[in-house]
């Protein structure tokens, strides 16, 4: 092949990349860089034009405010528990639904169904179900069973966990489907061999299924964690951050401070800290998975 041809080939590869890159730079990279720059200024709703460089003042202020620590704590609790809940339920579900059941397809479709609904709709639906008033579905059941009403969303010690339950319910089927895909790629030879060795079902799960599910586990836990850290919609629909600050998350506080109260640059700084935090957690996550893989 001669030189101009190679050159043309390379150009074409770049051209393939170009539309995605252009859109991405215009609507993501560029605004994000701007936001990063803003985080070192005093930009706010009162100083929209005269923007002054203030160094890391915003970052220092951030770590002095206990509300933000509450937000970070809530977000971490949410992300870890929602991620664990989804995966611990989805793996056995996927293993069972990978068996030769007669209603296999129906069941799979049923468990995935909540993922079709908008988070907003799911949020408002659960809002009605959790309600402590007369038509709250779950509380009707609780009372019928002879227990005290549970104040799912109004009790600051419970609200966050109620949100997590709704969220796990919505996404467990989605997570399961990814495990199913992975399970289908595992050759049955392994199991046949194990059967000859008289391995029990549990042993097969422990020594064959689980290690071979590693790609799906990695994918689901990492994505679950990242999406959990970004949580906003479901909290907004269920509790709006309350009662008090008990369910405020990083993103909801970012919006409250950075937009509602007009501290734009402060919100930007919070965003940057958040991205670093997510990056750090993802890095640790991968490291842990690698360690597990080597064992």
């Amino acid at each position: 092949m001669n030189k101009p041809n190679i050159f043309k080939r390379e150009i074409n590869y770049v051209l393939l990349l170009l539309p995605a890159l252009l859109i991405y730079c215009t609507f993501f990279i560029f605004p994000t860089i701007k936001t990063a720059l803003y985080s070192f200024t005093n930009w706010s709703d009162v100083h929209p034009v005269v923007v002054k460089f203030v160094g890391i003042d915003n970052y220092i202020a951030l770590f002095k405010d206990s509300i933000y620590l509450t937000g970070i704590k809530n977000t971490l609790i949410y992300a870890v528990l929602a991620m664990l809940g989804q995966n611990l339920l989805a793996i056995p579900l996927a293993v069972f639904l990978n068996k030769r059941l007669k209603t296999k397809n129906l069941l799979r479709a049923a468990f995935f169904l909540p993922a079709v609904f908008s988070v907003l709709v799911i949020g408002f639906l659960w809002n009605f179900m959790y309600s402590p008033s007369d038509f709250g579905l779950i509380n009707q059941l609780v009372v019928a069973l002879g227990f005290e009403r549970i104040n799912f969303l109004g009790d600051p010690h419970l609200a966050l966990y109620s949100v997590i339950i709704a969220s796990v319910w919505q996404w467990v089927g989605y997570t399961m489907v990814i495990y199913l895909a992975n399970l289908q790629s595992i050759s049955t030879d392994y199991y046949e061999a194990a059967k000859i060795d008289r391995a029990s079902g549990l042993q097969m799960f422990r020594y064959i299924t689980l290690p071979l599910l590693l790609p799906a586990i990695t994918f689901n836990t990492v994505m679950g964690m990242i999406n959990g850290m970004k949580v906003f919609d479901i909290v907004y629909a269920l509790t709006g951050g309350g009662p008090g600050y008990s369910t405020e998350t990083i993103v909801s506080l970012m919006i409250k401070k950075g937009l509602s109260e007009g501290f734009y640059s402060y919100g930007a700084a919070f965003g940057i800290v958040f991205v670093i935090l997510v990056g750090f957690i993802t890095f640790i996550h991968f490291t842990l998975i690698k360690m597990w893989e080597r064992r």
Partner: protein
Amino acid sequence: MKRTWLIPTTALLALSILITGCSSNSTNNSSTKESATPNDTATPKESKAPEPVKKVKVRLSYWNKEDSVKALLQLFKDKLPDIDVEYQFIDNKTYVDVIKTQLAAGEGPDIIGGVIDANTVKTGYFEDLTERYASKYYETGTSTATFDNKLYGLPQASWFNGVYYNVDLFAKYDLKIPTTLDEYFQVADVLKKNGIKPQAIGLKNPNVAGQSFLGLALNDFIGTTEGKKWNDDFGKGNSKMVDALEPSLTTWTEYLKHGVFTKDMLGLEEEQAIDEFTSGKAAMFQAGPWYMETFKQKAPDMKIDMFPNLGTKGGPGWMVGGPGVSFGLNAKSKVKDAAYKVLDLLSTPEGQNAYWVDNKGGSSFLKGVTFEMPAEYNGAQEAFKAGNVMYPVNNWGVAGPAFSDLGKGIQEIIAGTKTPRQVLEAVDKKAVELLEKSK
């Protein structure tokens, strides 16, 4: 429906060009992106039915549903044939965020309800309306939208909240209308004994929690001469909340001690609380005229009256309230002439009346316009006569957003995780932050 397929088809078309063009592709590729753009910008309404007269579109935004301005929009339609007023409802919870985002980007609706404060005015988001309208309105109404003696918004009929009560239930148990908090708790005890919830309240919303406290605080402190001075000083950053309001907030916790408000209610939406009131399960409900239609829909036969918010000392009581939403003109609007015509119409008795029809109860601030108070508010007449209507947050200026922290703090008190003192200190801290930003 045909337009729906336009864009994907274009994309496929562009794709097919690419397929055939194996060798000469650099030009083709750039056309993929561009061809997508002009086509879908054509999707907006223009291509629909061609209007005989080209209407100017004026966008008006507000946080109440279209139903609450139905008559007003109809009036615009009838009287301003060459203007198409497009109403943009944005839910209360996101209203300020959405509008401020738009304004910060130099965008936004042409006529904006609310959001007019020292900051947004200083930033130049709003047009100065002084010359054209200031003389037409009473100062009591324009004060919330006036900064440095310049008017930036036109106040609509006033709003207020008091305590609605179920007249039949009160009669059934032979209850007297309470005039002090103590009497209120006596009434509440009787109701509770008979298995009726004294007052329904959607405490899930921090704003609702805050309103309840304001009602009491106005009676016990903020409504006094000394209190009013304190309130102004608070907005300027010259006084603290913690010393002034701790007694009132501690008194407010009586609602909790008497079991009128409970932790349960922290999980209750306002909508759900209304259901309790209209179904007769609860006897009282703190709100304002905007819910009257809902009450009538849900319980057409229910007799309702209102008494003012109560304090410990008695007297005529207080209504929490003030001028209604102020409509301002976006300084960046591209259709200012048309928008002025809309505002002109709003500033006529006809316009005021059209707004009032769907918000009965308040009074107009346009000179020469008076509305009759519906009979449902008889019990609150004394408070109105004494001029006891005030929304303290209006004087907080740039520290206004701290009210949401107060509401959240009250939720924390109800939940038992904070003391009144801690809450007020937190609000003070937020106020300082907000004030410092504006310096």
